[in-house]
């Protein structure tokens, strides 16, 4: 109960992380092994490469109620699959630019590069992104699951 | 008047050319008239701050030069040209400070006038090479300096530091070489083209300038040069005005003329040496001018109109 009190003021945000298996997932592991403390909001999904990351995954998450989506992969030119992240960064950049057009803050989607050795950098990335999402607050979204106006209608 | 020129550029003369380097200013204005470029002197320009200001406070230095740039910008210019490499460095320094996001605000606060940092500062030499073009210079030559051997001397600041200068090769520049070749002179490879002349030590440590300038002069003589072409008022002062001093120091007679590149260009354009300020040089240029009169033949082609 006391524990619960402690977290109450600081409601968790719903943050999804898509991490490539080779660099950033390892980087997050490194941060853990080094006991680098981080905010607890992030939930990580392991993907083979940022090239696997369809921007629509992030898009769907953000219109389904996620407050933030963080994608991290190998540094450009260090991609395990040589070019996956080079395709990915173009797609992410487009998505970042697109979201505000629909009324979703660009900052709710962030992508970065963290290598398997950069535990400390991972800590910084998570801390900073979580801070930013807390600053933005809940994603008001699109009146998510309730049926449309005149729900009866359709 | 303006309409008759092919282009117009903002001109920042700087203090030196109002004093010891008057001939640099005179010859610059003369040749640009032939080259069909109008120089618009920045109205109410102030001193660039020179060495003292940036040693005292780089921000102050940036603001002092920034004012000149801001005025030029307000006049609608995107480029300001200055003969003096010292002034050039100060002007460029100001733009560098502007481009530093941490310092921009402070600079603008001091400046207290609109400044957008889109203006570029260039030296006369850079303007001649990049904006006017060597071919255009060559086209305007009436009396090629044939048979005359001239070594180019760039000094320290014209091409360096490379990050700020963004012009020519920092260690092995060729822009003056190419201009000299274009006006018909013989240009030997001059290994000391970027060696230091001793700069302001001419006042406090004559021995250093004696040694440094001395070897430059000696190398030029050894290469059989009739003149050393320069593009910096301070270098010119050390090489020309102090030549006698250095002769005493080195125990060797030089008597070599040290004109500005613009004076040489002017000569080839057929402009009266007097208008180009040749008479103001300390080391007597008469020998060179006589040689020029004797050797040069007017080009058969009709000259471009000289206004």
């Amino acid at each position, binding site marked *: 109960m006391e524990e619960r009190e402690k977290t109450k003021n600081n409601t968790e945000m719903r943050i999804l992380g898509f991490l490539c298996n080779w660099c950033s997932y390892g980087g997050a592991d490194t941060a853990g092994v080094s006991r680098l403390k981080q905010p607890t909001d992030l939930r990580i999904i392991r993907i083979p490469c940022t090239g696997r990351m369809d921007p629509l995954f992030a898009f769907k998450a953000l219109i389904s109620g996620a407050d933030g989506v963080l994608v991290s992969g190998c540094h450009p030119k260090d991609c395990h699959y040589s070019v996956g992240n080079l395709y990915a960064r173009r797609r992410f950049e487009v998505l970042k630019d697109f979201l505000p057009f629909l009324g979703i803050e660009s900052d709710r989607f962030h992508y970065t590069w963290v290598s398997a050795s950069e535990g400390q950098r991972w800590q910084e990335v998570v801390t900073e992104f979580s801070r930013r999402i807390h600053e933005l607050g809940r994603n008001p979204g699109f009146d998510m699951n309730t*049926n449309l*106006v*005149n729900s*009866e*209608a*359709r | 008047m303006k309409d008759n020129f092919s282009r117009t550029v903002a001109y920042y003369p700087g203090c030196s050319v109002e004093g010891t380097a008057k001939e640099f200013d005179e010859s610059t204005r003369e040749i640009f008239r032939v080259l069909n470029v109008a120089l618009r002197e920045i109205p109410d320009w102030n001193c660039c701050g020179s060495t003292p200001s940036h040693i005292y406070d780089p921000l102050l230095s940036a603001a002092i030069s920034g004012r000149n740039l801001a005025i030029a910008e307000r006049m609608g210019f995107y480029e300001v040209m200055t003969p003096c490499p010292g002034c050039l460095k100060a002007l460029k320094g100001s733009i560098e400070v502007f481009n530093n996001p941490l310092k921009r605000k402070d600079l603008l606060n001091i400046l207290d006038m609109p400044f957008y940092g889109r203006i570029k500062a260039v030296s006369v030499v850079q303007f001649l090479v990049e904006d006017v073009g060597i071919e255009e210079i060559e086209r305007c030559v009436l009396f090629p300096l044939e048979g005359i051997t001239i070594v180019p001397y760039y000094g320290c600041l014209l091409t360096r530091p490379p990050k700020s200068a963004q012009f020519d090769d920092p260690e092995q520049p060729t822009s003056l070489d190419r201009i000299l070749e274009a006006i018909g002179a013989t240009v030997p490879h001059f290994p000391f083209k970027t060696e230091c002349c001793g700069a302001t030590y001419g006042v406090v440590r004559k021995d250093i300038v004696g040694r440094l300038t001395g070897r430059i002069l000696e190398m030029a003589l050894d290469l059989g040069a009739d003149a050393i072409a320069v593009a910096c008022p301070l270098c010119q002062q050390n090489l020309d005005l102090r030549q006698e001093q250095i002769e005493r120091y080195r125990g060797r007679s030089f008597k070599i003329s040290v004109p500005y590149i613009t004076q040489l260009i002017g000569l080839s354009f057929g402009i009266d040496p007097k208008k180009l300020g040749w008479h103001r040089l300390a080391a007597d240029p008469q020998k060179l001018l006589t040689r020029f009169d004797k050797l040069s033949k007017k080009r058969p082609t009709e000259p471009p109109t000289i206004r």
Partner: protein
Amino acid sequence: MVARRKEKKSQNRIFIPLEGLNQTLENLSKHFTVWVPMPSGENEWSLEFKPLHRGCKILLDRQSTLPPKKVILPQGQTLIEYEYKKSESDPSKQDLVLREVIDESPIIVFGTRPCDVRGFLVCDKVFLQGRYIDVYYRARRLNTLFATLFCREADDACFCSSVGSGPADMEGSDIGITPIDGGWILEGLTDRASEIFSLCDCEAPDEKQIEDARRVQEEVRSMRVGNLRTDGVLEGVKGQFQNMELWRDIAESCLSCGVCTYVCPTCYCFTITDEPQGLRGERLRSWDSCMFYQYTQEASGHNPRPTKLERYRNRLGHKFSYFPLRYSGMIACCGCGRCIRSCPVSIDIRQGVERVREAHHGCVCS
């Protein structure tokens, strides 16, 4: 007061002045959900039936883009809500709890046109006749009343008179609406009407208004909208079933989109899906369209209608041949012309029918 109300109760006609429409319907909306045609967006030409809300703009001067089909047959309708209850002691055991969602709230659809109501008469055959009665449809259908306009707004796409209906066809409607100068005359057609009139708080029309209305109705009754001939098409579709050149001719430009079926008052095709979320979920019935490839996609991978040609053939055939063959000659088309008007490539179902007849009989005799 009491006497007056009584008098009203017995009346079979009321007059709603132009400016009194919203108020009258708002009165009704205390007892019913009142659906009216209104612009689908601020500056749009399209109209949609939506539940009345205060200050909304009711437009009765043109046919709605979307028919009121969704009032009875929503685009997405939860039929059943379900939940798995896991046993506390043994997580491998669980019970299934079901809840049927049947909506019986009373509804009035105000401002329908004969073609709109005709659509429901077609759907009724499917959902309310025979061995299987659709309880979800029935619940809504029985609790919905229609106030229908005598329609004067036919355009080039309309052809209701050609399919057994007409601009004055009041079959299936509970109230007839006749537009006259200065307002509307509402006329009870079924027993349920008078009950509604009593809630409207309106005056009875005067003699002149009744006369005006009579003249309008006369005029509308005399109108014949559309000159499509449907004789012989019943067999025509069957006969030309394999004539793919014909169908290519008719539907080559079809985009395979669902506009025609979604704007059609008689198209009732649906799909049923389960939409789970953890241990809960719902069984959903949603609109589907025979123009979609996925509609007939079979689990085996086979698709009996692989191209738009087969699919368009089905749409036309179903409306003008298969349905009438099954339901004693009733054409499953109400002639509203919505599919023609909204089609992105202006495919005209009338032309399709004519081509079929022409191909079957070798000539067009009209």
